[in-house]
């Protein structure tokens, strides 16, 4: 265990929304895979930026612009440390995971793959890690292949190896599934890819708030994430890319910031990371994101993993005791995300009925329709936990479900 101590009450105190009443009940927020709540320090940082030093960045020389630029770039540095990238130049700000994947599809895959090359993804991907590849494949005659998912919600590694051939040039895979909770053996998968000269991208949207990410250790070429799933604001995401790869990629969007010199005859592009950041960025929220990273680091991943594992095991036990409840995704290595069906109650009814008791869960296909098809489901109910959730909340939730089905 870390030397830092873990105090749930103190953590919950930092989230103003957790005091809210929903339909006359204390809010129980179990929709963390969709988006997490935000601690006061994140909200305050945004507030402070707009109240005290709002200015456009990078080109201004006045005091406000200087301060805003410094704070904005501090976040880049924090992200770099947070995921252990070699250099800050490897950190590009986007709107979120989805934009990040599109950036890589459009700037890397489109330019470095050719007709009949192959891309591998898996059956458990989020739509955001499917559709960009479908679009780019269709446009460029590239072939998209998908790794099977096993009945227990794990990736079929044998099938993965079978899919690889001389034409395989790119793999994009989810680190942690937003529907199944499965944590994939990313390092092993990337190692296999490296042996076969396959460029790799990891969708870290669901992973980054729950376990330490070390991109150098993973040795992935790209890693993408969303701030809003990490206690940070909406509208901010990151593309990590290895410097030598980002260097050779053409810009994604054109505009202010990403240029060195503009001329009607010849325009030259800026250096990394600015080459990929056209236009005024989401300054306020990038600055807020830094505080979310601080929030996580202050608790520490040792504490987070150990507490969240306990909570997950507790939830798993409790849910499994409910009559007619079936959990979809039972990987040994998983986080506190539980998709389930109930024999007697449709997930849509369940969602609304729990909402009437103050409990927020998600229902539907969770943007993973191919996975739903695989399991012959139209949708599920999903409980997804975060660092501020408690055993008491799980008890309350289980009690309410039991009442419903009896």
């Amino acid at each position, binding site marked *: 265990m870390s030397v830092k101590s873990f105090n749930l009450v103190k953590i919950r105190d930092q989230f103003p929304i957790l005091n809210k009443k929903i*339909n006359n009940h204390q809010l129980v927020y179990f929709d963390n895979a969709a988006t997490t709540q935000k601690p006061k320090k994140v909200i305050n940082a945004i507030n402070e930026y707009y109240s005290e030093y709002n200015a456009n960045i990078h080109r201004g020389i006045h005091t406000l612009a200087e301060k805003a630029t410094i704070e904005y770039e501090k976040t880049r540095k924090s992200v770099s440390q947070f995921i252990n990238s070699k250099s800050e130049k490897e950190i590009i700000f986007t709107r979120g995971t989805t934009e990040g994947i599109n950036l890589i599809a459009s700037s890397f895959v489109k330019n470095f793959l050719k007709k009949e090359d192959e891309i591998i993804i898996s059956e458990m991907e989020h739509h955001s890690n499917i559709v960009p590849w479908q679009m780019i494949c269709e446009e460029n005659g590239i072939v998209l292949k998908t790794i099977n998912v096993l009945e227990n919600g794990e990736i079929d590694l044998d099938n993965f190896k079978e899919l690889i051939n001389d034409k395989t040039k790119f793999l994009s895979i989810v680190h942690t599934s937003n529907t199944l909770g499965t944590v994939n053996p990313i390092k092993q998968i990337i190692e296999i890819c490296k042996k076969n000269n396959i460029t790799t991208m990891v969708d870290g949207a669901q992973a980054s708030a729950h376990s330490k990410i070390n991109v150098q250790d993973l040795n992935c070429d790209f890693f993408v994430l969303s701030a809003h799933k990490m206690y940070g604001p909406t509208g901010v995401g990151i593309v990590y890319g290895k410097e030598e790869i980002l260097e050779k990629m053409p810009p994604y969007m054109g505009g202010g910031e990403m240029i060195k010199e503009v001329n009607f005859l010849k325009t030259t592009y800026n250096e990394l990371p600015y080459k990929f950041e056209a236009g005024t960025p989401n300054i306020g929220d990038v600055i807020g994101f830094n505080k979310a990273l601080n929030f996580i680091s202050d608790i520490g991943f040792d504490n987070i993993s150990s507490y969240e594992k306990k909570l997950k095991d507790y939830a798993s036990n409790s849910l499994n005791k409910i009559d007619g409840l079936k959990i979809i995704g039972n990987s040994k290595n998983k986080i506190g995300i539980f998709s389930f069906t109930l024999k007697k109650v449709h997930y849509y*009814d369940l969602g609304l009925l729990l909402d009437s008791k103050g409990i927020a869960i998600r229902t539907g296909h969770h943007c993973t329709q191919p996975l739903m098809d695989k399991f012959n489901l139209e949708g599920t109910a999903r409980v997804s936990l975060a660092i501020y959730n408690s055993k008491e909340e799980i008890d309350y939730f289980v009690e309410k479900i039991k009442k419903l089905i009896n």
Partner: protein
Amino acid sequence: MKTTDSIQKDIINNFKTLDDDFEMTLNYLIELGEGLDEFDDKDKLEINLVKGCQSKVWLNYKVKNDKLIFSGDSNTSITKGLLSLLIKVFSNQLPEDIIKTKLFFINKTGLCRFIGTQRSNGLESMENKFKIIALANKKSNE
């Protein structure tokens, strides 16, 4: 026979007693759904289907004295409750009256909460299904 508008007014009055309480409203809706006549599983055909965001609705009808009699079902209890209200409004009415009807009870009962926002607007599809059926059964010389 009551007009569609007066039926809607009745519904609004019934819901008033619930005092906008989320839970009571839900339970009342579910009860209403349970009160619907049995829907024959063999009528759960593609052509009778209305697809909402997270639920399915089947709607069937027969004609009796020029009036349309609707029957329906849903795979979720709450949507079934909503459907039962629409059936209450539109059933036993002439096609031309159905077509003319403007649904105003939804906004006045707090039910919009269960129909969901723009995205999951299954209600519009449901309403359309009723009206399309009405259109198809309208006397052609009118």
